[in-house]
C-alpha cells in the first residue's frame, strides 16, 4: 500500500512542474520581439505509476500515477521552412548586388541626356559637318578640335568612373568575404557548445536560434549547403569545400597577385578557387567580371571605331598649311583616346582632299570634302561587323543595360516578396503570440493554485490521521 506521504510528493511535483512551465512562458513573453527567437514549449509527461508488488497487492487497484514531470523544453522550429527561406535569400543577395551595380552604371552613363556620350558623339560629327560648308573658317576649325577634345575627355571620364565602380566592388567583395569568415567561425564555436549540451540530452534552444540567425545571414552571401550532423553540429559547405566542420572553420582569402584590378577568391588552406554560384558573393563577382567588364569593352569598341574611321580619312586629307598624313586621335581605347597633340594649330586640321593632277598635294583651300566625309561617318556602319553605326551600337548598349537593370529589379522584388512570405510562415510556426502565452500562463497558474490547494488537503488529511486519530478520552 502506498504511503500517505505519496500524495504530498505528487503535489510537490505539480507545483514544480507548473513553476517551470510558467518560467518557460515568461521566457517566451520576454522574447516576443527578439529577432530569430523560436518559442519554447514545456513538454509535460505523467510520472510512472507506483506498482504494488504482487505479494502485497490483494484486491486493490494497481497502477496509481505518481505525478508529473517536465521532460523536455521543446523548441518549435521548422528546418524545412528555414532552408527554403535561405534558398530564396541567395537569389535576393545575388540579384541585389547585380542590381546595385547596374543602377550605378545607369547613373554614370546618365542617358537619355544632353550631356551624355551620345550627345558628345553627335556634336563631334556635327562640328565636321559645319566645317565642310566653310572649311577655311578658323572658328569652325577650332570648334572641331574642341569637339574632338571633349569627346576624348568624355570617353576618359566614363572609363574612370567605371574603374572606380570596379574598385568599390572589390572592396565589397573583400568585406563580404570577411563577413563569411566571421560567421563561419561563430557557427563553429556554437557547434561546440550545442554538441556539448545535446550530449547531456538537453535542447539548447537559444543557441540554436543564434546559429539559425547566422545561417540565415550566411545564406544571403552564398550558396552554402548546410547539413546537420548526429551530434547536433551543422556542417556548412560552399562549392564542395567545407566552411564549417564541427568546431573548425575554414577561411576564404583574396589574392590580388594575379591581377590587381580583379581579386581572385581562394580558400586559404588549399588555395583552391572558391566556387560560389549564387548569393551576394557570386553577384558581386558577376557584376565586376561580366557587367562592368562588358560595358568597358563596349566603350572601348566605340572609341576604337571612332579613332580608326576618323584617322583613316584624316590621314588622307590636307590641312590649310599642306599638312597631311596626321592622325586626328591618338590612342585606341576609351581610357586613352585623346586629340593628337601634333594638331597644335587649326591650319593642320585636314579638310581638303588631294588634287586631281597631283594626289600628293592638296586640291585647294576651299575644298572641304574630307571634312564632309568625316561628318558622314555618323551614318557609316563601322561597328558590329559593319552592321551598325556608332550611334546604333551605343544605343543598343544603353538599351541592354536598361533591360538588364529592369530584369534585375524584378528578380530582386519577386525574391524579396517570396522571402517575406516564407518568413511570415516561419513566424507562424516559431513566433510568440502574446495571447497564446497568456492563455498558457493562466492555465499553469491555475494548475499551480490547484496543486497548492492539494497540499492543504493532504495536510489536513494527515493532520486528522496523526493528531486526531486514536485519541480516546483526551
Amino acid at each position, binding site marked *: 500500500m502506498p504511503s500517505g506521504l505519496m500524495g504530498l510528493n505528487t503535489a510537490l511535483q505539480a507545483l514544480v512542474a507548473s513553476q517551470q512551465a510558467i518560467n518557460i512562458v515568461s521566457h517566451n513573453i520576454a522574447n516576443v520581439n527578439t529577432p530569430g527567437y523560436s518559442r519554447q514549449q514545456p513538454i509535460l509527461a505523467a510520472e510512472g505509476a507506483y506498482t504494488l508488488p504482487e505479494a502485497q497487492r490483494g484486491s486493490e487497484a494497481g497502477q496509481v500515477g505518481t505525478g508529473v514531470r517536465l521532460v523536455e523544453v521543446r523548441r518549435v522550429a521548422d528546418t524545412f521552412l528555414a532552408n527554403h527561406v535561405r534558398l530564396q535569400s541567395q537569389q535576393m543577395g545575388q540579384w541585389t548586388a547585380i542590381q546595385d551595380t547596374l543602377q550605378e552604371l545607369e547613373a554614370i552613363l546618365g542617358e*537619355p541626356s544632353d550631356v551624355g556620350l551620345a550627345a558628345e558623339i*553627335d556634336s563631334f560629327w556635327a562640328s565636321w559637318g559645319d566645317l565642310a560648308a566653310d572649311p*577655311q573658317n578658323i572658328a569652325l576649325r577650332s570648334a572641331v578640335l574642341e569637339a574632338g577634345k571633349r569627346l576624348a575627355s568624355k570617353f576618359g571620364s566614363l572609363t574612370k568612373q567605371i574603374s572606380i565602380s570596379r574598385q568599390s566592388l572589390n572592396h565589397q567583395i573583400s568585406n563580404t568575404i570577411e563577413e563569411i569568415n566571421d560567421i563561419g567561425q561563430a557557427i563553429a564555436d556554437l557547434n561546440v557548445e550545442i554538441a556539448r549540451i545535446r550530449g547531456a540530452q538537453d535542447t539548447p534552444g537559444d543557441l540554436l536560434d543564434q546559429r539559425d540567425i547566422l545561417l540565415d545571414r550566411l545564406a544571403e552571401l552564398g550558396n552554402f549547403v548546410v547539413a546537420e550532423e548526429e551530434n547536433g553540429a551543422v556542417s556548412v559547405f560552399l562549392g564542395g569545400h567545407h566552411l564549417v566542420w564541427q568546431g573548425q572553420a575554414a577561411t576564404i582569402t583574396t589574392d590580388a597577385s594575379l591581377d590587381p584590378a580583379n581579386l581572385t577568391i581562394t580558400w586559404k588552406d588549399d588555395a583552391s578557387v572558391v566556387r560560389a554560384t549564387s548569393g551576394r558573393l557570386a553577384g558581386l563577382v558577376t557584376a565586376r567580371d561580366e557587367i562592368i567588364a562588358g560595358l568597358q569593352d563596349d566603350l572601348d569598341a566605340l572609341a576604337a571605331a571612332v579613332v580608326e574611321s576618323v584617322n583613316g580619312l584624316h590621314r588622307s586629307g590636307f590641312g590649310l598649311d599642306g599638312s597631311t598624313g596626321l592622325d586626328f586621335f591618338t590612342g585606341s581605347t576609351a581610357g586613352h583616346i585623346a586629340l593628337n597633340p601634333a594638331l597644335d594649330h587649326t591650319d593642320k586640321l585636314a579638310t581638303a582632299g588631294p588634287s586631281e593632277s597631283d594626289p600628293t598635294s592638296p586640291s585647294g583651300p576651299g575644298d572641304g570634302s574630307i571634312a564632309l566625309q568625316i561628318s558622314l561617318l555618323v551614318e557609316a556602319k563601322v561597328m558590329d561587323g559593319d552592321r551598325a553605326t556608332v550611334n546604333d551600337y551605343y544605343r543598343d548598349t544603353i538599351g541592354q543595360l536598361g533591360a538588364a537593370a529592369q530584369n534585375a529589379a524584378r528578380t530582386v522584388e519577386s525574391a524579396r516578396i517570396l522571402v517575406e512570405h516564407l518568413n511570415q510562415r516561419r513566424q507562424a510556426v516559431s*513566433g510568440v503570440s502574446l495571447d497564446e502565452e497568456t492563455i498558457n500562463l493562466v492555465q499553469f497558474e491555475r494548475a499551480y493554485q490547484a496543486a497548492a490547494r492539494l497540499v492543504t488537503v493532504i495536510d489536513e488529511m494527515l493532520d486528522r490521521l496523526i493528531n486526531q486519530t486514536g485519541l480516546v478520552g483526551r
Partner: protein
Amino acid sequence: MRVTENMVWQSAASYLNRTRERLQRVQEQVASQRRILRPEDDPAGTERALLIRSTIRAYQSYKRSVDQGLARLTITESALQRATQALEDAVVTTMRLRSDTFSDAERESAALQVEGLLDSVLAAANTRYQDRYIFGGYQTNTPPFSMDETPSPSAVYSGDQGVVSLYVEPGRTVEIGLPGDTVFGDALEALIGLAEALRTPGADLGPCLDQLNAAVDTVLQAHTTIGQRLAILQDIDENLARVDILLQQQSSDIENLDLAEASVQLASEELAYNATLGMIARLPQPLLIEKLR
C-alpha cells in the same frame, strides 16, 4: 495559421515601405517632368528617345548647312545677274554702233564704256563671300580671273574645277560651287574682243554680237542652274522645319511626363500611403492579458 505579434509588425513595415517606394517614384517623375528617369524605366523607350535626340541634332546640322548654302547661292545669283546686266548693256551698245556710222571719237567712247562693263563682269567673277572667292573652285584665296595684258589683253582663269557640296538631307548632297571659267570666261573674252573691235576702224561688229549673245546664253544657263539649286534648298528648308516640329513632338511624347496622368497617380499614391499609415496606427490591439481580471 497562427498569427504572432511579429508577423503583424513585419507585414506593416513591409507594406509601408512598398507604398513609400511607389510614392517616391511618382514624386521623382513629377519633380523632373520626365517619364523616363533611368534606362530601366523603359529600355525600348530609352533607345527610341536616344534615336530621336540624335536625329534632331542631325537635322539641326542640316539646317545650318542649308542656311549656309542659301546664303552663298544668293550671292552667286546676284553676281550672275550683274554679269548678265553688263553683257546686255554691251549688246545694246554693239547693236547701236553697228547700225549707224559713228566717228572715231564716238567709237572710242563706246570702247571705254565697254571696258567699264568688262570691269563689272570681272568684279562679278571675283565676287567674295565671307572672304573667299566663290568662282574659283577650290582656289578660294586667289582671285579666279585676272587680266593679262601681253601679248594681247586676255582673261586668265587661275581657279580649278572643284565644286563645294553640302550634305543637306539624309542621302542628299547639293552642289553649291560654280567654277567660273566657262561662265565668265566667254563673257570676258567677248567684251575684250568688243573693245578691241571698237578701237579698230572699220571692224565688223557682227561676230562680236554673236559672241556676246553666246556669252549671255552661257550666263543665263548658269543662272538657271543656280536658280534650281536655290529652289531645292528652299524646299528642303521648309521640310526641315516641318520635320523638326515632328521630331520635337515625338521626343516629348516619349520622354516627357503626362502631367495630368501623373497628378492623378500622385494623388492616388498619397492616398494609399495615408491609408497604410492609418491602418498601422490602429494595429496595437488590446491584449488578452489586459482583459483578464
